[in-house]
Structure formats: C-alpha cells, structure tokens
C-alpha cells in the first residue's frame, strides 16, 4: 500500500526534513509512526497525500508513484486516502451530518447513497443522534470521532491520522485507538502518527520511529 524508497526532502539545504527513508506498509497492516516533535512524522504523512514531494527518492502509494504522478491524477489518488487531524478540522458552521455529506457531495456521490453512507458512518462512531448539531456542541473526543467518520465516509483504502489524540485525555485517546483498531479490522490500512507512548504501548502494532528525519527503528508488533 505504501512504499518509501530512500525518500529525502530538503526544504533548505543542508537541513533535511526527511533523509533516506525507506519502508513498506502492506494493505492489511496498521502501523504507528512515532518520534519526537520535528522528527518528520507530519512530513512523512504529507508525502503520502502528495502535499509534499521528495527532493530525491520515491514514494509509491496504492500502486502510484507520487514522484511521477500527473497533477490531474492527484485528486483521484487522494480519494483512496482518508486523513484525520489533531485539530479535527470540522467546519464550524455546518451540522455534523453536513460535515460528512459535503465531502461526499464534492465527490459527486448520488444523493440517496450519500445519505445512507452518512447515516451509517455516524451510527458506526456512535453519534447518529447528534447529526443535526453543530460541532462546537460536542466534546473533543466526539469531535474526533466525527472527523474519523468523515475520513471514512468515502470508503478509503488507507487511513492516515496525524496526532489524532493530541488534544484528548487518556481515556478518550484509548477510545479513539479502539476505533482505529476496528477500522483496521474491517480491512482498511491505518497509519497513525503519534508521540504518545501510552497509546503506542497499547496499540501493539508495528512501530516506525523517526529521529531527525531518519528512520531510526522499524519494530514489529509486540
């Protein structure tokens, strides 16, 4: 699903945000990417969504070489990826339901299928009863569940989460982790970037550790 081959990104020479990073993730895996702040976790995720392009090396996602992909193909490639952010990025003036359905509308889903999918993902994260509320009326954990529902709505093959529990207390963090495990169990590849040690311990999945832009360790599930 994901293949990094000596991917390097240099913003301002000689400082590299990522340096010679190589690893592969299969479609059936759930992987945690960790490391201290500034180690390159978010940069790595941005390369997978092709917001950033390596200055050397290769990044292949779902069979597409992102260093050679045509500009017009990028939206199509991104439709196979769902992204969850630390700050949720819910649209404040839209209802919970609309936060999800507007993404499907933008992707030209037919109305009936859109409504059905929105209802289903809201039920799945346990917040169908809040469909007509505004995001600000929800707790942090609930808002993150909505953000996950939105990322899952277009049925992506790969889910990326950038510090998804950074704004949550430990109990809510474990609930969110449980959701990710369930998403993985249902057949979606999950890549989770976090520096939360407790979460990593509990996840019991493969862990990639970045340090100063280099892949320092690649540990199998314990």
């Amino acid at each position: 699903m994901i293949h990094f081959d000596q991917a390097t990104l240099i913003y301002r020479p000689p400082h590299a945000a990522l340096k010679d990073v190589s690893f592969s993730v299969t479609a059936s895996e759930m992987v945690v990417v960790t490391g201290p702040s500034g180690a390159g976790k978010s940069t790595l995720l941005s390369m997978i969504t092709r917001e950033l392009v390596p200055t050397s090396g290769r990044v292949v996602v779902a069979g597409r070489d992102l260093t050679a992909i045509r500009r017009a193909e990028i939206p199509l490639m991104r439709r196979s990826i769902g992204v969850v952010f630390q700050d949720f990025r819910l649209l404040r003036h839209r209802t919970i339901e609309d936060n999800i359905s507007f993404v499907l509308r933008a992707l030209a889903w037919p109305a009936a299928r859109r409504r059905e999918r929105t209802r289903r993902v809201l039920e799945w994260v346990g917040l169908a009863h809040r469909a007509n509320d505004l995001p600000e009326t929800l707790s942090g954990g609930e808002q993150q569940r909505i953000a996950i529902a939105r990322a899952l709505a277009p049925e992506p093959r790969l889910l990326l989460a950038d510090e998804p529990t950074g704004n949550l207390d430990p109990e809510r963090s474990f609930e969110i982790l449980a959701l990710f495990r369930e998403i993985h169990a249902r057949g979606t590849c999950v890549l989770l970037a976090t520096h939360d040690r407790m979460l990593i311990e509990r996840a019991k999945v493969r862990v990639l550790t970045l340090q100063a832009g280099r892949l320092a360790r690649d540990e199998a599930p314990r």
Partner: protein
Amino acid sequence: MTAWPRTAAEVVRVAASDLGRRPLAGLLSVAAMAVAIFLVASFWSLSHGVRGTWARLAEQAVIEIYLKDGADAGAVDALAEAIERAGGVRRVERVSPERALAEFRALYPDLGDLRDLLGGNPFPGSLRVQPEGADPARVAALVELAKANSAADSVRYDRDWLEALSRLGGALSRFALAGAAALLLAALVTIGSVVRLALDDKREEVALLRIVGAPNAVVVGPVLVTGAMLGAAGALAGVLAASLARQVAYGTSSASPLAGLSEALFAVGLSPAEGLALALFGAVAGAAAAAAAAGRRGWSG
C-alpha cells in the same frame, strides 16, 4: 444522474451559496459592472446614431459656387464642365438668381418680399455641386478648383461644420469609452474582491476538499462561476438599463424642440444578440477577474 451533471450542479450550488454569504458585496459588484456596461451600450447606440445622422447630412451637403455678377455665360459653362470632368461629382446644377430668391421665400415665408425690401434681387447666380461619396480630399480638390476659377466669386461648403461636429463626436466617444473602460476595470476589481472574501471565508473548506481528493472542478469551479454570475448579472442589468434609457429618450423626444435630432441619435438600439454578447462578455470578464483573484490567493487549481 451521472457524475458530471452532479458535479456541475454542486459547483453552481456552492457558487450561489458563496454569493449568499456576502449579498451586499455581490450587489456592489453587479452595480459597478452594470454602470460600466450601461455606458458601453449607450455609447455604442449613440455612436451608431451619430454616424447615421452624419452620413445622412453629409449625403445632402453641397458645394455652392457663387458666381460673380455679370459672369460670362461661357466661363460659367467652362467651370461647370471642369467640375464634372474632375470626377467625384454626382450632379452640377445651375441656380439662377431668380431661383435662389424663390428658394429663400419658400424657406422663410415670414420675411416677405426681399426684392421689394432691398430694391432688387440680392442673390447671385450659382453652381450647386453635389459630390459623390464623402472623401474629404476629393471634395477639397473640387472646392479649390472652383475658387481658382475667374467666374467664381466665393465658395461655400456645408460639410465643414459637419466634419467639425464629427470630430467633436469622435472625441466625446473616445472620452466616454475611456470612462467605461475605467468603470469596467473597477467592476472587475470589485468582483475580484468579492471572490477573495469568499475564499477567505472558506479557506478550511477548500483545504479539506483538496485533501479528500475533490475534483478541481468542485474546488476552483465555484470561484469561476461566482465571478461569471456577478459579471453576467451586472452586464445584463447594464444592457437592460441602456435599452430602457434609449427607449425613454426616443419616446419622449417627440415633445422636444430637438425631436428630429433626438430620434435620429437614439434610433438604433442593441439587438438581442448584441445584448447577449455583452452579457457573455460580462460573464467571461467576471470569471477572469475571479480566476486572477484566486491565483493571487495561491490556488489556481
């Protein structure tokens, strides 16, 4: 519905929604565009009227060659033949002093019998030359030819003042078109500002659409459609206002002392196809202004 019509419907829906968020700014853009197009359409119509009127008057203009008292008939014949030979002449007519007096009486019946008043006929005989076409150089050559002839006393040519009027009309048209162009630029800047405000409002939304892989049509389309809608609405309003103003000017002119002139100047209006072309121009210009504004905000697609 297949994906394309759904995408198009979504683009229009989002554009309308964006406009709804800032109705006053949108109205301002429409008004600015309407004034600019009103000026363009009005001056187009007026310039057609001026050209038509000028052409009609120019067609009727004649060179009047007044003959010296007691000019030899042979010399007058020679002058008439020389003018006919010079070419570019539709007709050369001899006007006797008696006919000139009769024409004057017909034009000004209130002035009574001028012959009795002055103790004789004050009008000289003349040659009335009607040039063919409106080539100023050819007409000037005819005038010079007549002036140089010994039988001619003086030469009067009506088109001098018409040409001065035409030059004045041309200068006014250029001035008005420059004003319309400035207003058009202001309208486009206003549309650009409306689009930039809309983009600032939905910065997060656009970022999200990009990350979920929404097609560029959905991300950039509403911006262009917003600009096109504002431009087309403004242009259409301008065309309608110009048409209404022309009809009012034309309709009320019969009561005015300058009725003939007013009717002649406002006789030609925009055809539906021309009005539609201006509305289309407004739409394209509006979309271009929006695209430029989006480009300056760093997301041209």
